């Protein structure tokens, strides 16, 4: 019998929700790291009991936590809380230091501003090695560990891709999406708030902006700008890594050539503003978004919480409403707060800033809340345990 483990990061701790394959009865454990902001928790697909968590606070900075037993116990990698038995230098697992000269990026007043590390937004474990993990951070950069989180090193060539022109938006200049190509280990896509999408074909040695075709209305005066695009999220199906889907600040977009070019597929959505986008586990052309009214009003149109599904890879969308609040709903769904499981009837999950985590065990037709009253949800990941 398969099980499902949902990893939820919130503004005040992490929660782990578990159920069997029916996904009807749920157990909730947590909060883990109570009182800390947990931007992201994700497990290794190679070793599902290996979990990584990004724990941070405005007071104490960044902590990386690791679990080797599916979330029952946690420790900072490299020696635990009080000792460093393997001789690791102090606090190395929490240390994210930009490689070489720190460099500068564009600041709000048009001047150049030094990069300053703030937090890890997203952790993406390797598809082949549980000890290798990529970390997307604010101010935007990509780090990697190859020793299970004990030490982190920047893939600094990314910031050479016109990094001097990147400028933070109101939510911070965070690297929030990391897509690893399952068919080509040298190809990685990353997305950065208010900067855009970037692609490497050589394992991170060099990067190029991958933003051609994106609509720039209301964002950038120069229609040829390669950077400065406020990308909220990108997604791919592992069987089809050349096809990418994007929820941009405004517009939902699709690329059929590995990010070389994009075209809009917002179609009949009631609003094409939103944050998350995800792909069905077994239907590469079925995608999900949660429209939000506007960038000035971060809540659903008409106060109705609706997931929209397209079975045609975009353009034609249907609202999914059964079990979701259809009046007086003013929550938001953040960019990392949607995920899918890979059971036969694909499960879809998302968390809200109101603290609900909703699940559908039938590809989005019917929804139920797993929990209703968590702190604001920052991220949701799902593990399908066989």
């Amino acid at each position, binding site marked *: 019998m398969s099980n499902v483990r949902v990893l939820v990061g919130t503004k005040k701790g992490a929660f782990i929700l578990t159920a069997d394959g029916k996904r009807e009865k749920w157990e909730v454990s947590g909060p883990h790291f109570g*009182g*800390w902001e947990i931007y992201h928790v994700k497990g290794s697909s190679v070793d599902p009991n290996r979990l990584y968590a990004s724990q941070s*606070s*405005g*007071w*104490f*900075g*960044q*902590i990386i936590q690791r679990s080797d037993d599916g979330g029952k116990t946690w420790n*900072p990698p*490299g*020696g*635990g*809380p*009080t*000792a*460093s038995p393997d001789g*690791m*230098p*102090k*606090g190395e697992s*929490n*240390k*994210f*230091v930009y490689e070489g000269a720190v460099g500068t990026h564009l600041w709000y007043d048009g001047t150049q501003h030094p990069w300053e*590390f703030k937090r890890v937004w997203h952790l993406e474990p390797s598809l082949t090695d549980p000890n290798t993990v990529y970390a997307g951070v604010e101010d935007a950069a990509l780090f990697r560990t190859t020793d299970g989180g004990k030490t982190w090193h920047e893939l600094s060539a990314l910031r050479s891709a016109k990094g001097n022109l990147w400028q933070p938006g109101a939510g911070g200049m965070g690297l929030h999406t990391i897509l690893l190509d399952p068919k080509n280990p040298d190809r990685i896509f990353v997305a950065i708030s208010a900067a855009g999408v970037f692609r490497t074909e050589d394992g991170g040695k060099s990067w190029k902006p991958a933003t051609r075709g994106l609509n720039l209305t209301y964002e950038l005066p120069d229609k040829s700008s390669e950077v400065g695009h406020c990308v909220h999220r990108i997604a791919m199906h592992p069987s089809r890594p050349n096809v990418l889907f994007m929820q941009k600040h405004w517009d939902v977009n699709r690329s059929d050539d590995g990010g070389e070019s994009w075209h809009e597929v917002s179609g009949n959505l009631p609003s094409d503003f939103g944050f998350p986008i995800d792909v069905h586990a077994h239907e590469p052309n079925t995608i999900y978004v949660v429209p939000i009214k506007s960038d000035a009003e971060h809540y659903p149109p008409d106060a109705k919480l609706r997931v929209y599904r397209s079975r045609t890879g975009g353009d034609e969308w249907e609202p999914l409403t059964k079990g979701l609040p259809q009046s007086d709903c003013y929550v938001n769904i953040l960019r990392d707060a949607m995920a899918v499981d890979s059971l036969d009837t694909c499960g879809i999950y998302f968390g809200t800033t109101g603290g609900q985590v909703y699940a559908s065990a039938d590809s989005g037709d019917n929804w139920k809340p797993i929990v209703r009253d968590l702190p604001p949800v920052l991220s949701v990941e799902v593990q399908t345990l066989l």
Partner: protein
Amino acid sequence: MIRVELPFHLRNLAHVEREVTVEVEGPVTVRSVLDALEVRYPVLAGTIRDHGTQKRRPFLRFYACEEDLSNEPPDTLLSEDVVSGKEPFSIIAAIAGG
């Protein structure tokens, strides 16, 4: 033996009580006390001072003997009462934000 008081979240992180003690060799300063603390509790490195700049994190304060030492140069000598263990060196999480 220097007594160091830690705020709630750092106590939990290091799995210790409110107060810990550290040995400091040589002059007892803010820097040497924090260095000794981080050697004994490696997980605290970077949580009190920035990894790169070694500057105090903005929402933490350092108090001792009813004085705010937060903005003193890190090599300022601490008072005899802290050195003797009569008074603790307190790391305070500022009341700020949510």
